[in-house]
C-alpha cells in the first residue's frame, strides 16, 4: 500500500497496462517526453519507449480515428485528449466508429480502447479547460463512461477500462488529481465497471454524485450531520454508462429523498437521467421532488468567476435541507 494522489494512481494503472499487455499503447499530445501536461504519463516513455508511448501531432480526430485502426490491427490503445474541451474534435470519429464498430461488423472488429480526458472546473484554467460535458458521450450508444473520484478507484477503474473489451470514455476530475492522497494497494486492483458505491450510509436522504463533485458532497454530508443532525446516504456513481440503477433505487427506497450533484449543465444532463430512472423504478417511494445541484445552463465563466457557478458545499447542504423540509 502506498499513499498516492490520483495523478500517481492513474500513472500506476497505465504502467501496469503497458507492462502486462504488449499490445497496449498510449497516444496523445505531449504524453511522451513531456510526460503529459498533468504528468499522468510520468516515466512511461522512459520505461517503454517511443513505440508504446506516442507523442501525437495536434490532431484530436486522428488520435481517436487512428486508435480505431490500431484496435482493428489488434492493439489496445489508451488515448489521451489533453482536455475534455478538445475531445469534441474527435466527436465524429467516436460517434461514427468507436461506438459502432462492434455493432456494424457483428463483432468481427471491436474497439477495446480507452479515451482519457481531464474534465471539470475549479483550477483557474483558461477558457475551454474547465467544462464537464460527459453527458454527450453518455448519450451515444456503444460507449461506457467512467468517472473516478479518488486515487484508489481511479486506478482500479482505469485498469478495468483498459481491460474492458469495449470503448470507455474515461473522464478524469482534474481538480482532484493532486488534491488528496489515498492508500492504493501495490497489487493490481480492478473494480467492476457499472457498479456504484455507497460511500456513506444514511437514512434521511440520498445524495448522488460522481467525479470531482464527490468532494463537496462528502463535506456537505458531514456538515449536515454536524450542524443539522441529518444523516445522508452518499452514492458515488463511478460510471454513467452503465448506470447502476439498482444501487440508486435501493437507497431511494430507504431514504425517499434525493439530491443529484454534478458540474455539467443541468439541461439534458446526467441528473435528468438519474431522476427519470428513479421515477420509473421507485416513484412511489419519493417523498419530495429530487433536487439538482448542477452547473447552470451557461458556459462556465472564465476562472475569475467560475467558483460560484459550480456546485459547492453550501449548495449541496441547502438542496438537501430543501428535500428534507418538503
Amino acid at each position, binding site marked *: 500500500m502506498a499513499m498516492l494522489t490520483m495523478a500517481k494512481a492513474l500513472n500506476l494503472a497505465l504502467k501496469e497496462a503497458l507492462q502486462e499487455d504488449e499490445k497496449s*499503447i498510449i497516444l496523445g499530445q505531449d504524453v511522451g517526453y513531456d510526460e503529459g501536461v498533468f504528468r499522468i504519463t510520468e516515466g512511461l516513455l522512459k520505461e517503454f519507449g517511443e*513505440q508504446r508511448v506516442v507523442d*501525437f*501531432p495536434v*490532431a484530436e*480526430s*486522428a488520435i*481517436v*480515428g*487512428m*486508435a*480505431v*485502426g*490500431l*484496435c*482493428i*490491427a*489488434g*492493439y489496445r490503445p489508451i488515448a489521451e485528449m489533453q482536455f475534455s474541451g478538445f475531445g469534441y474534435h474527435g466527436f*465524429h*470519429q467516436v460517434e*461514427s*466508429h468507436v461506438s459502432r464498430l*462492434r*455493432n*456494424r*461488423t*457483428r*463483432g*468481427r*472488429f*471491436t474497439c477495446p480502447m480507452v479515451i482519457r480526458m481531464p474534465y471539470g472546473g475549479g483550477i483557474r484554467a483558461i477558457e475551454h479547460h474547465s467544462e464537464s460535458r460527459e453527458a454527450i458521450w453518455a448519450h451515444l*450508444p*456503444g460507449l*461506457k463512461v467512467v468517472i473516478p473520484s479518488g486515487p484508489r478507484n481511479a486506478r482500479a477503474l482505469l485498469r478495468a477500462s483498459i481491460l474492458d*473489451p*469495449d470503448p470507455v470514455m474515461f473522464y478524469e476530475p482534474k481538480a482532484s488529481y493532486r488534491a488528496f492522497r489515498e492508500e492504493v494497494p501495490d497489487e493490481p486492483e480492478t473494480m467492476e465497471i*457499472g457498479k456504484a458505491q455507497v460511500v456513506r450510509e444514511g437514512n434521511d436522504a440520498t445524495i448522488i454524485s460522481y467525479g470531482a463533485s464527490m468532494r463537496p458532497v462528502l463535506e456537505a454530508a458531514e456538515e449536515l450531520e454536524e450542524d443539522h443532525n441529518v444523516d445522508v446516504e452518499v452514492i458515488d456513481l463511478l460510471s454513467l*454508462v*452503465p*448506470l447502476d*440503477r*439498482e444501487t440508486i433505487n435501493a437507497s431511494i427506497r430507504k431514504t425517499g429523498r434525493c439530491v443529484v450533484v454534478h458540474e455539467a449543465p443541468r439541461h439534458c444532463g446526467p441528473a435528468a437521467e438519474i431522476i427519470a430512472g428513479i421515477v420509473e423504478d421507485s416513484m412511489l417511494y419519493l417523498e419530495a421532488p429530487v433536487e439538482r445541484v448542477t452547473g447552470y445552463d451557461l458556459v462556465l465563466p472564465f476562472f475569475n468567476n467560475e467558483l460560484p457557478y459550480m456546485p459547492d458545499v453550501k449548495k449541496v447542504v441547502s438542496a438537501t435541507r430543501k428535500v428534507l423540509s418538503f
Partner: protein
Amino acid sequence: MPRKKIELRNTIESLSILDADGKVDKKLEPKLSNDEILSLFRGMLLARRYDERMLRLQRQGRIGTYGPALGQEAASLGPAFAITKDDWFVPSFREPAGMLWRGWPMARLMLWWGGNEIGATPPEELNDMPICVPVSSQIQYGAGIAWGLKLDGNKSVALTFVGDGGTSEGDFHEGVNCAAVFNLPMVIVVQNNQWAISLPRRKQTASETIAQKALAYGMNGIQADGNDILAMIAATREAVDRARSGGGPTLIEAVTYRLGVHTTADDPKKYRTEEEVEAWRCKDPLDRFWKYVQDKGVLNEKSREAMEEEIAAEISAAVEKSETYQADIMEPFDHCFETMTPALKRQRAEFEAYLLNGGSNGSPHAASSSAISQVH
C-alpha cells in the same frame, strides 16, 4: 540569398500506360501473365455487371438507395490487384470492383445495400474493412491499421480509398499528415471522379491536381489515369513496394469519372451536361481494357460471351442468396457491447414483449415513397 525558391524533395508526376485508344506504353507496361489479364478483365466485367444489376434491383424496390461505381472499376481493381491477401483493403463506398476482387461474397455487398449489418461484416479470412459512409473518416482507421502493421513489423500495407470530395474533410488531412509523420505503410488512393454529388472537382479545391496535396505532407504523390488499369497497377505497385521497404505512405490520385448517378436518389442532369458524360464514356476503363485483352489474345468476342453468361449466373445466385437472408431481429442487442448492460437487458425484454404483442417485424416501411426517392 534573401529571396529564393525552395526546392522540394518530392515532385509530382502523372502516369498513363494504356490510353483511351488502347495504345500501350511498352516501357511502362506492367508484366502480367495471361491468366492475370484474364482475371483482371473478369473482375472489371463482374463489377460492371454487378452495378447494373444493383441498379435494376433498386428500381424494382428490392434494395434501398444504391450508389454505383460505373466507370470507376479500374481505379479500385488495379490497386486491389497490386496488393496481397495479407495487406489490408480499406474502402470508401465506390470500390465494389476491389471488394469483389478481395473476396467479399457478392451477396454480402447486396445485403449492405439491402439494409443489413451482415453486409458490413468482413468475412473472417479477409483483412478488409466494410463500406464506410462518413466521407473520409476511413482514412483515419486506415492510417491506424497501417500503424499497427508497422508495429507488428510484418511488411504489410493498408490500402485506403477516398473520393475527391473526401480530400476536403479535416479527417483526410489529419490522417494523411500523421501517416507521413509516422512514416506508415499506407497507400491512399483518391478516386477523383470529378464530382462530389453536385460539386465539381474545381470547386472542391483550388489545387491543379489532387496528387500535389502530397507535398503538404512531405510525402510521395502521383497522378495516375484511373481509367487505365495498367497505370493503376503500376502506380500502386510502386507505392506498395516503397511502403514495404519503409519508405512511408503515398498518395495516388486516380483520375476517373463517375459515369452514373451519385446514388439512385440523385439526378445528375441538374448539375452536369450530357456532353461531359459522353466525353468520359469514350474513356471507359472496361472498353479500353477489352481492346488490350483482345490484342493480347486472351479473350475474343466468343469467349467473352461465355464469361458474360457465367457472370450473369454468379450475380443471379448472389441475388437469390441475399434475398433469402433472414436477419435476426433481436441481434442488435447482442452487438452493442460484449456483455449486455443491465439497461440493455431491460430494453431487450421490453422489445421482446412488444414483438410478442404483435409489434412490427420490420416490414413494410411507413415513410412515403416520395420521401424515400429523395434520399442520398
